[in-house]
């Protein structure tokens, strides 16, 4: 029972990160109709930027985090402006191929620039874990969870409360009508891709100090983000949030009670179950997001 509680706690914390990854991907798909295969690369980029600021340049840990996220936002905006803007209205396969190309190029540039050796980031947290009765959790993971929840809440607020969020929701519903109503679609797209990329970079920057940073870390992140998004229904933000937590629980319990070697296969099994039982995902809402 104690073991179960510990697994549940680990899953909850992991779920926060998965939700960040999933929300970013589902936003980009829902609003731009782009299957972003470079999503995991933004995650890896965030982790490397965290390493750059915190370890190479020696910036304060709490300052390095927003800096890394900001650079993720910047890279996302750049990718949208350079690669995707010209392809607006192109079919889904075309943009997908471009994003796959971007993924391969980015990942191997990371490999060249940082070498294949795993990097670790020191975090300013006490190494003794916080013990809560039968379970314990490291301070670092607790911090990760708190920031992830704050970012999720901020994203919801941005989508539901701001003018840009309203424009995003309008674009999601009907791109042509939104454009007719005076929504600057180009700006919405850039903002969406930058936001989604920023969330992925934040997930990487947060998890970098917990695990280690490697050039290929983005591959699994991409696959998991896809699983989460299918789970929740493509384009649904509540679906992606919940999907992130569901995937984390399934993985954690699967690794704990079935086989840790197949931990990363759990997401795929979940996809199969969802596609067989409810192909549109748990929360498919074609009408609205937010």
């Amino acid at each position, binding site marked *: 029972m104690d073991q179960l509680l510990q697994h549940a706690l680990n899953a909850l914390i992991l779920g926060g990160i998965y939700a960040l990854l999933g929300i970013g991907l589902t936003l980009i798909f829902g609003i731009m109709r782009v299957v972003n295969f470079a999503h995991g690369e933004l995650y890896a980029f965030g982790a490397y930027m965290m390493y750059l600021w915190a370890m190479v340049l020696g910036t304060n840990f709490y300052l390095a985090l927003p800096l890394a996220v900001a650079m993720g936002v910047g890279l996302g905006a750049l990718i949208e402006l350079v690669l995707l803007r010209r392809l607006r209205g192109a079919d889904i396969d075309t943009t997908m191929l471009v994003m796959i190309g971007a993924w391969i190029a980015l990942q*191997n540039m990371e490999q060249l620039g940082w070498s294949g050796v795993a990097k670790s980031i020191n975090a300013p947290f006490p190494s003794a874990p916080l013990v809560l009765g039968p379970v314990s959790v490291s301070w670092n993971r607790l911090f990760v969870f708190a920031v992830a929840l704050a970012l999720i809440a901020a994203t919801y607020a941005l989508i539901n409360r701001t003018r840009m969020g309203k424009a995003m929701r309008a674009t999601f519903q009907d791109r042509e009508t939104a454009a007719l109503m005076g929504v600057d679609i180009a700006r919405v797209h850039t903002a969406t891709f930058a936001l989604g990329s920023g969330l992925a970079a934040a997930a990487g920057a947060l998890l970098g100090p917990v695990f280690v940073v490697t050039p290929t870390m983005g591959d699994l992140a991409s696959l998991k983000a896809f699983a989460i998004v299918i789970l929740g229904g493509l384009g649904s933000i509540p679906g992606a949030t919940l999907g992130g937590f569901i995937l984390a629980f399934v993985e954690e319990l699967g690794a704990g009670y079935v086989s840790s070697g197949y931990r990363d296969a759990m997401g795929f099994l979940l996809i199969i179950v969802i596609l067989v039982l409810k192909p549109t995902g748990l929360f498919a809402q074609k009408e609205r997001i937010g």
Partner: protein
Amino acid sequence: MKRALTIAWLAFLVSVPLWLTNLYVLHVLIMTGIFIVAAMSLNLLLGYTGQLSLGHVAFFGIGAYASSLVSLGFSVHLLPGWEVGLEPKPVWLGMLIGTALAGLCGWAIGRISFKVRGAYFVIVTVSFAEVVRLVALNWVELTQGPMALNNIPYLRLGTPDLIEVAFLGKTPNYYLVVALAVVSYILIRRLVASRAGRAMIALRENEPLAASIGVDLTRYLVLATVVSAAIAGAAGTAYAHYVRIVDPDVFLFIYTVTMVIMVVTGGKGTLAGPVVGGCIFGLLPEVLRSFAIAPEVQWVIYGVLMVLVVYFLPEGIVPAVRGWWQRRQGVPAAATEPRTAAEAAP
């Protein structure tokens, strides 16, 4: 004219081992040939039905592993006290089983993912490949995991008493791969020209319209996936018995990407496209290597090329060259084949 060209081309292919003395180059040609077969199978899906399989390497690897395991024999404990085993079987049987198993996996993936269209097939195939790789890595009792399957027997046809052909070494395997490529090419060409092929192209061009005139979408999509997966599996079996060692790295995603780049660059939805693209990207790594370029740089170049091809040559090399040739011959533009790239989404 066209027939003469085909015969000349085939004669050239057959003659290669007679005058090519550099065994390394012959090896590169064999590997390129195997990749071309895999790329042709991917083209059937991507080019003719418009569905992108990003886990194609899974079918290739399943063919390789299944064929190796059948010819090596294996024994595994599925549950405590329940052992399943197989005595070593002839290699040709292994190759047939490997091909069939890959096709079966294609059927299952197709049945599941074509319930929903769009990005789902892509994501299901890419995750499927990852899971198969994890199984190959973790199920050590069956696959030897990272220690790899070694000493895989080579293909022998005939009987030892009469005539026996042993596919050991480069030259016989070269002919095996050429034969496989020719058979796959003819199979795909016949399929695409058939009623089923027209249905596939129809649903690529306009799915609702195709459905409205009675094309059973799921059926033809699954059919294309099965044939495509089986051909990829056959390429995998040829690979396994040529290289004679199979490890979980055959499932690396980068090989799928290589196939996709071959098809897209050569020209998806054309029969010659994967062959042209396969030749370019099969031989390009060797050229880059001679310039002492690190593999990472090679992949960066691949990634950038992929983006550039989508921007500047969206239909690929073969349609572009064909269009240029026809314009030169003064054929009016309307007489050229229909555009392969799907129309921009509304």
